[in-house]
């Protein structure tokens, strides 16, 4: 599948001509333009007004809208000034005013460029009928429109016809545009006309994907012909963005904003990029809220207003979303983006009557445009209503059978529903129409890889595991999944669905593609309802990821989503899952949480969702997880677990968080928030305030305040002395003292840190250091207790679990050692060592089944001495009374090592017993 590669079009014209020739043989006649042959609207304008036409145009192109408007108004009688003013008004959202300006005086025939400008204004605000009439008038042969202008009008009309459901006419006209483009000798087009040709090529890409490349090439040519015109770059950026080629899209958009940082369309596209997963933004535009900027320039820009509504919906701020959507539709009643956004509001609110009315209104003008359905499907998707998303995608396909975007949405949502075969077929179809869609390509590549995964059905579970890891992972994944489901059944009365698919990926990139379609997501697990995907322990560094708690967490989501029919808000399900996870695997507060508390950054309960979907500082998502779990913990303690169940039921009924709180708990959200604040303050407040004594320095790599490396021990200690309530500084001083060999003083510091922040959990927690120091001081009991406290707050500490197991073994506590080894395996099961040791513990305790499982794991984890691993497994089977398996395994051992004495003796024992 290596042929599914997408890159920007090569500049070599020959390649592009060859591709164009598929549709229009006349392409061979195409020649590059001669320098200066482009016609620019401004070229013919005399400089008879203040600042000159160039000055006004320059102001307009650089975002100096007020200056441009003043200049154009002063020179309205001059050629070109009217169109310049119209463009200024358009960019700043004064559409009606612009249209009025272009209204022809009675008895006059407006110039053709003004006709086109009027048509485009009507188009931008969704007034299809007048736009169509004007374009047709412009194309009337009697008007004798010049080639370039006619090409622009032709392309606009073709696209309009497609959107209005006049598919045949639209497609024919698009081909005509390309024919005209190819047939024009001497390359007489300006940048606008070239852009129009590019749009035609892009619109026909579904028939011949090579045209997507051609479109980009033509946009590039247009941009180089008139570097000041933002249109070609915007069109290129939009096309690339539609293909999820975010990095290259950003290049084009940044180029526009470099010239005009206040270009509303450029800002809007930037906002779209900002809505992509963070990794995609690495080389993209900066962190400014581009949508707010776009709307500040043009408060009526229909796509920007629609995006604002969709964002609010994503944040589950329904009322605000509704208010904005209604206002947008009132302002520009025909704009399809606004109608679609309001439809999304009604759809999510379950207001079918309103939704149908809006759909009818939309269809009246835009019968062939899938925009509305393509707005509803992602809205459903973001709510995790995957079945609804798939259904809406199907509707979009009925309206617009050529829509690769609709196919993509359908295919991806089918995969999320676990309908892998159908999803794949749909995505193959999408790929055929648009091989440049990065999401589709990545996902198909992933599905190709999944073919090599091992699939195990063990109802209700279906496990999909990397082939090389299935032997080790499967028993643990299955045992844990069953334990979780049993636990949730008991607590929540949860009955798992008939099929619960659990996919595990040994490459983070694959997991990321499964989750969002592109690489770079930072999460470890995802739950789509009946499908859970997570990273394999081998995908991450040992100690940095805890696969078992991740699986438990995601299964928690499956419960919350199942009980609420996917209506649970993000904060609630995350909080609940983390709470369940903390109870099962351990509990520890992280430094960012203390800092957020110190800085007053914890959100109030009704707005907790924002911390997940629209974080305002880097650590906010992590902080919100813990905070949400504390809210749920408080509710359970204060109101009983039944209150959680009632809240879930409230969400299932479609109620919002405020209503659910009021109706279930009998308090206002503000009162709940106050109560949670009090609990959080009592538990963490003093510790957090202690951190404030450290000042505002940055954080060190281990999460502690950074201290320059050239500072000696005394300086570090002095800083800790100056801030005796700052646990992070006490830890830092402890580390410095320990490194200097001043163990007694180091111990005091760490003990102080534990007193200050007993709940702090992390790789760099004080308990771990204390354990080491106690061990060095020959206090094994205290060392063991401290290590136990450490791993209880940081369960991913694989090495520490092994160390703890060894401590328990040394003190003759095989049961405890066994539990520690099981925990080590829950942190990282891929190494043979903990399995080997657990098998030994199991053997000494007569736990034959456990010994067999662990010996199987030793073998599957690639033990270097395979013959010995097989022999040990055979012995375990023999001890468990399973002679057949014992015989089989010992034969395998001896097949490798026929003179292996111990195995030979076992073979004889098996034989003699039989």
């Amino acid at each position, binding site marked *: 599948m290596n042929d599914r590669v997408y890159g920007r079009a090569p500049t070599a014209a020959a390649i592009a001509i060859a591709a164009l020739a598929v549709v229009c043989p006349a392409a061979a006649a195409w020649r590059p333009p001669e320098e200066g042959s482009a016609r620019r609207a401004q070229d013919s304008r005399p400089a008879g007004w203040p600042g000159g036409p160039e000055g006004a145009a320059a102001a307009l192109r650089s975002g100096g809208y007020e200056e441009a408007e003043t200049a154009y108004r002063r020179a309205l009688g001059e050629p070109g000034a009217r169109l310049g003013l119209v463009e200024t008004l358009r960019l700043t959202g004064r559409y009606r005013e612009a249209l009025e300006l272009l209204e022809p005086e009675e008895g006059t025939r407006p110039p053709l460029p003004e006709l086109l400008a009027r048509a485009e204004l009507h188009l931008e605000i969704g007034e299809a009928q007048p736009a169509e009439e004007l374009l047709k008038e412009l194309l009337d042969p009697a008007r004798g429109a010049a080639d370039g202008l006619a090409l622009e009008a032709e392309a606009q009309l073709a696209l309009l016809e497609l959107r209005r459901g006049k598919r045949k006419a639209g497609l024919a006209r698009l081909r005509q545009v390309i024919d005209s483009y190819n047939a024009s000798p001497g390359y007489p087009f300006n940048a606008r006309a070239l852009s129009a040709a590019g749009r035609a090529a892009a619109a026909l890409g579904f028939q011949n994907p090579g045209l997507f490349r051609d479109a980009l090439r033509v946009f590039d040519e247009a941009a180089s012909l008139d570097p000041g015109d933002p249109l070609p770059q915007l069109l290129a950026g939009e096309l690339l963005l539609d293909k999820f080629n975010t990095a290259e899209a950003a290049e084009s958009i940044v180029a526009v904003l470099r010239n005009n940082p206040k270009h509303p369309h450029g800002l809007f596209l930037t906002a779209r990029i900002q809505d992509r997963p963070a990794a995609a933004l690495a080389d993209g535009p900066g962190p400014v809220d581009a949508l707010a900027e776009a709307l500040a320039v043009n408060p009526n820009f229909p796509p920007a207003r629609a995006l604002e509504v969709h964002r609010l919906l994503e944040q589950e701020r329904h009322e605000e979303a509704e208010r904005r959507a209604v206002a947008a539709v009132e302002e520009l009643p025909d704009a399809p983006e606004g109608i679609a956004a309001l439809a999304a509001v009604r759809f999510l609110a379950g207001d079918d009557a309103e939704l149908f009315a809006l759909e009818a209104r939309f269809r009246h003008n835009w019968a062939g445009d899938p925009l509305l359905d393509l707005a509803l499907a992602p809205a459903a998707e973001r709510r995790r209503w995957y079945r609804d998303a798939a259904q809406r995608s199907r509707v979009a396909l009925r309206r617009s059978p050529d829509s690769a975007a609709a196919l993509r949405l359908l295919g991806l949502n089918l995969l999320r529903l676990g309908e892998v075969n159908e999803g794949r077929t749909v995505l193959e179809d999408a790929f055929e129409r648009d091989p440049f869609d990065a999401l589709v390509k990545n996902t198909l590549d992933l599905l190709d890889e999944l073919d090599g995964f091992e699939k195990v059905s063990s109802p209700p579970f279906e496990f999909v595991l990397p082939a090389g890891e299935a032997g080790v992972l499967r028993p643990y994944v299955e045992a844990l999944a069953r334990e979780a489901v049993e636990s949730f059944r008991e607590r929540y009365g949860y009955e798992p669905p008939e099929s619960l698919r659990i996919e595990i990926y040994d490459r983070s990139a694959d997991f990321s593609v499964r989750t969002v379609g592109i690489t770079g997501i930072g999460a470890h697990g995802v739950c789509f309802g009946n499908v859970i995907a997570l990273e394999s322990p081998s995908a991450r560094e040992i100690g940095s990821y805890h696969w078992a708690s991740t699986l438990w967490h995601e299964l928690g989501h499956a419960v919350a989503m199942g009980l609420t029919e996917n209506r649970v808000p993000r904060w609630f399900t995350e909080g609940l899952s983390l709470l369940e996870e903390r109870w099962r695997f351990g509990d520890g507060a992280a430094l960012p949480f203390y800092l957020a508390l110190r800085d007053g950054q914890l959100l109030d309960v009704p707005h907790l969702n924002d911390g997940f979907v629209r974080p305002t500082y880097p650590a906010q998502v992590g902080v919100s997880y813990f905070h949400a779990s504390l809210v749920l913990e408080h509710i359970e303690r204060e109101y009983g677990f039944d209150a959680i169940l009632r809240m879930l039921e409230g969400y299932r009924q479609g109620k919002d968080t405020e209503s659910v709180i009021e109706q279930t708990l009998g308090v206002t959200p503000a009162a709940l928030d106050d109560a949670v604040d009090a609990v959080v303050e009592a538990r963490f407040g003093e510790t957090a305030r202690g951190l404030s004594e450290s000042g505002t320095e940055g954080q060190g790599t281990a999460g502690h305040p950074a201290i320059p490396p050239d500072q000696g021990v005394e300086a570090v200690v002095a800083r800790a002395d100056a801030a005796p309530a700052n646990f992070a500084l006490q830890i830092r001083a402890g580390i410095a003292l320990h490194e200097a060999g001043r163990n007694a003083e180091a111990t005091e510091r760490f003990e102080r840190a534990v007193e200050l922040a007993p709940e702090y959990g992390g790789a760099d927690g004080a308990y771990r250091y204390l354990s080491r120091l106690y061990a060095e001081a020959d206090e094994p009991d205290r060392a063991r207790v401290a290590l136990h406290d450490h791993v209880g707050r940081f369960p991913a500490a694989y090495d520490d679990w092994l160390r703890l197991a060894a401590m328990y073994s040394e003190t003759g506590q095989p049961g405890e050692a066994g539990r520690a080894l099981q925990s080590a395996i829950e942190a990282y099961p891929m190494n043979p060592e903990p399995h080997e040791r657990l098998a030994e513990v199991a053997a000494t305790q007569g736990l034959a089944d456990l010994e067999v499982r662990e010996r199987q794991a030793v073998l599957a984890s690639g033990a*270097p001495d395979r013959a010995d691993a097989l022999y040990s497994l055979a012995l375990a089977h023999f001890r468990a009374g399973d002679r057949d398996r014992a015989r089989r395994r010992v*034969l395998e051992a001896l097949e490798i090592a026929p003179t292996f004495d111990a195995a030979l*003796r076992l*073979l004889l024992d098996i034989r003699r017993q039989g």
Partner: protein
Amino acid sequence: MLRKIVRRSVPTFLGALALAGGEAGATGNGSDAGPRLVIVAGVGGSPEHRERFSGWARELCAAAVATPVPARVRVLVERPPEAGESGDPCAPAGRSTEEALAREIEAAGETGAAEAGLVLILIGHGSGGGNPRFQLPGPDLSPERLGEMLQSAGAGPVTVAHLGSASGAFVPALSGPGRVVLTATRANETNETRFPRHFIAALAGDDGDRNKDGRLSALEVFDFARRGVEREYEQEGLLRTEHPLLDDNADGLGSLEPEAAPGTDGVLAGRRVVLVRSAAAVADSSGDTPEIRRLIAERDALASRVDALRDAREGMDEETYLAELEALLLQIAELAERIAALREKTE
């Protein structure tokens, strides 16, 4: 696919046993038989690396002498201590210069390696490009120069393990009849290697003896170390920058996964024993009463039939195969029981 294992090929075994002392344990360190294992720790370039390389040399030596048949070992390091511990078989014999290395190899040839063989282990940094070298104090060592030196090692079997970076560049010059050449990397891989730690672990621990016959073959050591390197890179999620090679069919081209299949690299290495790790393995070939020796020969013949059966497995019915395998193995098990009983009696 099951990898083919070649065991106990008696005709060449005498030569292979040389490292372990050859004559049934009569030769400890300091015997007249002369040096047979030469370990060279090259230039470290930093105190940390110097320590590491000389430490590895010591570990290797310790593994080679701590067996029932201690090998005779000569260790050369970048900076030998002025006075070694007296009686320490692993005390460095000198500085690891090219000249000293040449002397050690020549001495090996003069003192009996013609029959017993020589194992040369190079630990350190290598350089690649068009001018490959192994870095030594003084002039660095080129593959060609080492090839010349080995001509003086006598006619006995020679095994060279170059554990450093860019070591694959030495394969063409060292390859030859009767030679087993192991390298940590391909010619163009110049990063610091992880191979040595796994190579040492194979020699020092029990896990490298894949077929449990008490003798570590060059192939077993290579395979163990290679897999260890692979696993390490995989677990750390890193792109592998070292691919160990083995050449033993004199074609000058190393194999990444030698298999001991006829005509390929691995056959000779599978027979080349580099260390004997169990007393029983020594006794198998050199001690015991005539009766025990007869039983051992019978057992080994059966074991060879197991090899043959395994090679013929493809196309056989699974149950038939297992039944035949079990029948052979039961015979071996019974022989092993009798051998053990007889040994107990003779002790």
